[in-house]
């Protein structure tokens, strides 16, 4: 009888031990799940944010670290985004960024990727105010900071701009919108104007819909399309960006013609930034008006006339 009691006590102890271990294991799993979950909206500010993971999702080979802000604002943090060479280093033979629009476009694209990364990171890191994109060595080419540095909020803790349409449209619907825009553009422009179109889809925030799109167009003669820039830039962005009702994290449109002339627009939704690079050989009209009818499928931004960059005369 005593032996039986001892066996029962031992068995009860084992059960309790197993239960305890299970509880500890479950709690641990919960914590891990919570940590992973912080990559989504509303994650705990206390959990470290995997900024390197965000960077790698946007650009394979990229990384990111948080560093102290450049401005003397208490608590401000800056995100240093390190990009792989192809994304931030002009190819051999490229001209200086001041005179070669392709070089300027490459830096604009690099800064855009950094803005996308910082924009998502800023939703999880209230103290994040600025970002800077560098190469692997932590450096920037002379004059490139204009393209590579930016800000996501003015002061630590400041609310980000409200973007209610973000994450409300599925990536498939976004892509369909873009593809339909491209089809409308090709049909609406003079026949033969567009030689080739390629689209790169970028997962900016895997925890949400969080997509950005990079569109590259090859055209015959960009100068002949200068009065159609409203279609090329605003029309192509119909239902996607820019502005407060943007449905995508970012949209880049880069157009190049056979003679090497180029024009581009890089829009980052969360940081509310846009960069424009226009070949000086192309003279833009003062107002760029879409002529083609683009169907807004997502309920995002309409294609509207745009006042192009530059001083008001």
């Amino acid at each position: 009888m005593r032996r039986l009691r001892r066996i029962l006590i031992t068995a009860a102890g084992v059960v309790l031990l197993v239960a305890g271990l299970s509880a500890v294991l479950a709690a641990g799993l919960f914590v891990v799940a919570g940590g992973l979950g912080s990559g989504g909206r509303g994650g705990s500010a206390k959990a470290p944010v995997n900024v390197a993971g965000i960077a790698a999702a946007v650009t394979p080979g990229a990384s990111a670290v948080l560093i102290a802000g450049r401005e003397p604002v208490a608590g401000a943090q800056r995100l240093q985004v390190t990009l792989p060479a192809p994304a931030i280093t002009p190819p051999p033979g490229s001209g200086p960024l001041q005179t070669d629009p392709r070089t300027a476009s490459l830096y604009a694209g690099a800064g855009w990727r950094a803005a996308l990364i910082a924009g998502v990171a800023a939703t999880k890191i209230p103290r994040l105010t600025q970002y800077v994109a560098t190469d692997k060595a932590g450096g920037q080419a002379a004059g490139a900071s204009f393209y590579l540095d930016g800000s996501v909020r003015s002061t630590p803790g400041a609310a980000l701009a409200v973007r209610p349409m973000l994450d409300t449209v599925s990536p498939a619907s976004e892509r369909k919108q873009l593809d339909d825009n491209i089809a409308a553009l090709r049909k609406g422009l003079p026949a033969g104007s567009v030689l080739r179109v390629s689209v790169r889809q970028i997962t900016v925030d895997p925890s949400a819909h969080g997509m950005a799109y990079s569109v590259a167009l090859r055209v015959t003669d960009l100068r002949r399309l200068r009065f159609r820039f409203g279609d090329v830039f605003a029309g192509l962005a119909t239902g996607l960006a820019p502005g407060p009702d943007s449905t995508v994290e970012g949209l880049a449109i880069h157009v190049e013609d056979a003679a090497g002339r180029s024009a581009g627009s890089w829009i980052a939704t969360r940081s509310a930034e846009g960069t424009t690079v226009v070949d000086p050989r192309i003279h833009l009209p003062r107002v760029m008006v879409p002529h083609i009818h683009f169907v807004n499928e997502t309920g995002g931004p309409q294609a509207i006339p745009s006042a192009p960059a530059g001083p008001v005369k």
Partner: protein
Amino acid sequence: MTRSRQRTSAPASRRFLRRPIRSSALLAVAIWLAGATLARSDPDFGTLGLDQTRFGSVVSLVTPAAGLAQPADEFVVQRDVLQSENTDPGLIQAGVYRSGSGISLDNCGPHAAYVVFAEVKAANSMAYRCQLYNDVSPGAVVTLDIFRFTTPGTWGIRVNGAPTGSAYRLGFTKAAPAIGTEIQSAGPGNQYLTETSTRYEPAGHARWSVYTTTGRQHVRRVTGSDSISAYPMVDHLWKITRPPSPVTIKHRQP
């Protein structure tokens, strides 16, 4: 936004027509009719009309392109130019603008609220950057500081005293302009002048404030060659905070 505003204003307009004509309304209309109309033509961008009214000034922007005629409350409120004497400007423009459905400011995008924005151009390049800062809530006071750092050739912007980041520190290869103190008021009268600030000496410094409760705007001209132009928006901001008044609706009519 345009459509919703028009919907809300239409009944008020009818009420105005039904309402007995009172002396104050007559006075307002008289002032409006007698108000000076300034028109600035731009061969590309259109005509900017500035009508003096009882409450201030109303801006109407009509562009020559089809479909671009905008009601007075849908325009770039202050697409101002702070352009240096250099042929290659650094800071192109900054200010407060609203463009609900009429026109987009470059790729900053259209915006359904008053926002602080800045657009800059890299020195000696073909690139522009545009950034929206914060929305301007009705009743809020927004102060923009635009200045040159003491470091030669770098610009800075502060919104409500806070730096906006490093994106707008631009390389400038030429000397900064001398400080000027000439002050111009954009609104009727000069009752809203701001103080001169030389906090960022020896840099040129421009500052203006936008008071969204009353629509007062302050404009400072920094030097003879640097200029900031402003288009008062009193009535538009009244529309944000208060129901449209009969006088406001009257202005809408051509």
